[in-house]
């Protein structure tokens, strides 16, 4: 029998099984600590990718892992993304729990075939005889002078692909909780890390092994007049915008952090839309067929009778991602200013 392992056995060893200890740490440290805990707790977990070993990852997420876990479990692969994901799938099929790193989401395209046609479709095509418990980590997003090829936000392509799950933490706590959940999921999960948040975002992180379940959105702040629905770095930009607009207009703004793009928390989205009657969806990605389009379409379809204004979208323009030169980058990148402008229109509607 060749078979992917069951996830149930793998709870990370932790000094605080109740998860009540919380330490404030950066986003990157939350990810690193969680990866380390899981590597320690379960020898079936392996990490593979370009520069993940000797270099500890180009963002140093796996710094010193090679020393602790050895080069059998921390694999500096050749420069070949399709090979990385393909071998991760094979490892999972034969008893390991691989975490594959794609160095930048921009470079996932060569692996699209393995992700879409193999990982995502394996369970379905085999009528549940096989499954594919892999986690793919990738830094994404802009605003770091990464230019066209180190700034992309192409998560919508994966949200469009049944069989995958896609998560995007916006806080260090969710970084841990979602990663733990992804690592216990029986299906392939794409785990996206906004690279601008690695060292700029800090927050409390529980030490325990409590997961943040996939498919459950987070209420960032409650409000009654309008809702912003977003994810990733845009949660922080939206919060800035909402604070400014609230102060200015007295409007009470609700913010929902999707966290999980697939499965979507449709209930949380619709409940909030029905409550406030005004929805702004924000994504850093290009607009057409984006996650913002999906959420907007969903709200328009299922909460129509409750809407007091059109569902608005703020998204990147339909321009190939992110020019390098700072004035161009700023013009391209979605931020609090642009979100605030849309929000003011929505509130005034």
């Amino acid at each position, binding site marked *: *029998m*060749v*078979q*992917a*392992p*069951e996830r149930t*056995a793998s709870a990370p060893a932790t000094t605080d099984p109740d998860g009540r200890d919380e330490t404030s740490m950066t986003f990157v440290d939350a990810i690193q600590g969680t990866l380390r805990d899981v590597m320690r707790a379960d*020898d*079936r977990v*392996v990490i593979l990718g370009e520069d993940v070993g000797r270099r500890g990852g180009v963002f140093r997420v796996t710094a010193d892992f090679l020393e602790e876990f050895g080069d*059998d*479990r921390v694999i500096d*692969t*050749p420069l*070949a993304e*399709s*090979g990385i*994901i*393909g*071998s*991760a*799938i*094979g*490892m*999972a*099929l*034969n*008893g*390991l729990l*691989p975490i594959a790193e794609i160095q930048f989401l921009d470079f996932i395209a*060569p692996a699209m*075939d*393995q992700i879409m*046609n*193999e990982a995502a*479709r*394996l*369970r*379905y*095509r*085999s*009528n*549940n*005889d*096989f*499954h594919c418990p892999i986690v793919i980590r990738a830094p994404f997003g802009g605003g770091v002078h990464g230019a066209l090829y180190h700034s992309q936000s192409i998560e919508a392509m994966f949200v469009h692909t*049944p*069989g995958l*799950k896609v998560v995007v933490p916006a806080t260090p706590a969710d970084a841990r909780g979602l990663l733990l959940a992804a690592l216990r*999921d*029986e*299906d392939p999960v794409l785990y996206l890390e906004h690279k601008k948040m690695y060292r700029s975002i800090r927050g409390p992180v529980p030490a325990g092994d409590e997961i943040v379940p996939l498919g459950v959105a987070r209420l960032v702040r409650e409000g009654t007049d309008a809702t912003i629905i977003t994810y990733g770095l845009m949660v922080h930009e939206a919060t800035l915008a909402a604070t400014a607009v609230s102060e200015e207009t007295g409007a009470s703004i609700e913010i929902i952090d999707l966290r999980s793009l697939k499965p979507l928390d449709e209930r949380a989205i619709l409940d909030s839309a029905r409550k406030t009657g005004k929805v702004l969806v924000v994504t850093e990605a290009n607009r057409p067929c984006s996650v913002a389009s999906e959420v907007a379409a969903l709200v328009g379809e299922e909460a129509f009778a409750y809407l007091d204004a059109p569902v608005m979208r703020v998204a990147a323009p339909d321009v190939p991602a992110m020019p390098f030169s700072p004035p161009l980058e700023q013009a391209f990148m979605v931020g609090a200013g642009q979100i605030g402008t849309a929000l003011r229109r929505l509130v005034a509607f």
Partner: protein
Amino acid sequence: MATEPIVAPDHAIQRAFQPGAALANGASDPDDLGPVPIADPLTATVAPASIGDAGLPAETLRQMYQALVRARSLDQRIWQMNRIGQAPFVVSGQGHEAAQIGAAFALDRERDVLVPYYRDLALCLAWGLTPADMMLSVLARAADPTSGGRQMPGHYGSSRLRIISGSSVVATQLPIATGVAYAAKLRGTGQVTIVTFGEGASSEGDFHEACNFAGIHRLPMIFFCENNQYAISVPQSLQLAIDHVADRAAGYGFPGVVVDGDDLLAVYHAVAAAVAQARKGDGPTLLEAKVYRYTPHSSDDDDRAYRDQDEVKARRARDPVRLFETRLRDLGLLDDEAIAAIQRDINREIDDATEAAEAAPLPDPATYDRHVYAGG
């Protein structure tokens, strides 16, 4: 579906698999199998001497013959069913059988992992799928064990038999196979992984990335190329600028071996040597069996536009099933009566399989959205 825990909690991971595991299938020490014959497939004559070298018991040779005829007969039946409108789409491995049976018998089918492609009816049959399984798949029945009727026929898979489910996408199985082999090595399971593909697949980037990774980590695996000279209509001369896919191994740091795929025992020898090397920890082999595709690419294809039918005739005249039959006759291991008996049994088995599949229910339409995710 439960999986044994594979690494001890005290981190006692086995860094390499156990060497010295015995070869299955009655073969004696694979190191004693003698030299690997390499032959020009169109001019080579099969030297009966190699039989003596094989060190195989008569019983094994007869099993090989039975497996060969079973595969050919089943394949022909499936093709006929398509031609008379009973199966909407089929793909055939006719012409590849000796290569596949030779390979299957050189591996440990109770332990090793097979990552096949759509031409591997004979290989998967020898590996444990049954004609009944195959017919359920051809007729897309609910009980089809490989996909419940969800995939086209020819997309073999079974976790129980360690046959990895494949897609239709050419060459994606190769990096997956390297991952399987990596896990086998890390976990110390002693498994050898064999992955099969056509010469056309060797043009895909995935072939390169898989071989490269396997070479670096000296993975216990075999890249088994069934070179039938065509990728649908594209002849080898437009697929490669070299004569042998096996020559690509030079770029990956492991041996490349060419073998006459019409010669079952030649393939057996070559694969057994590769298995021995892999099991010893000495890494992969790229093994290329020169075969020929007797049918069009699939039941949707018509090969007359692009393939000289004289070429087809010439290759069919060198049928590997007949070649092996003649050998065993010459060795006194088979006679008319034995052959007829084998064929009779196989025909009955295929008839039964067909009837059972025809009687089996189609999938319930309500199940179309099951198993996208766990528990769903």
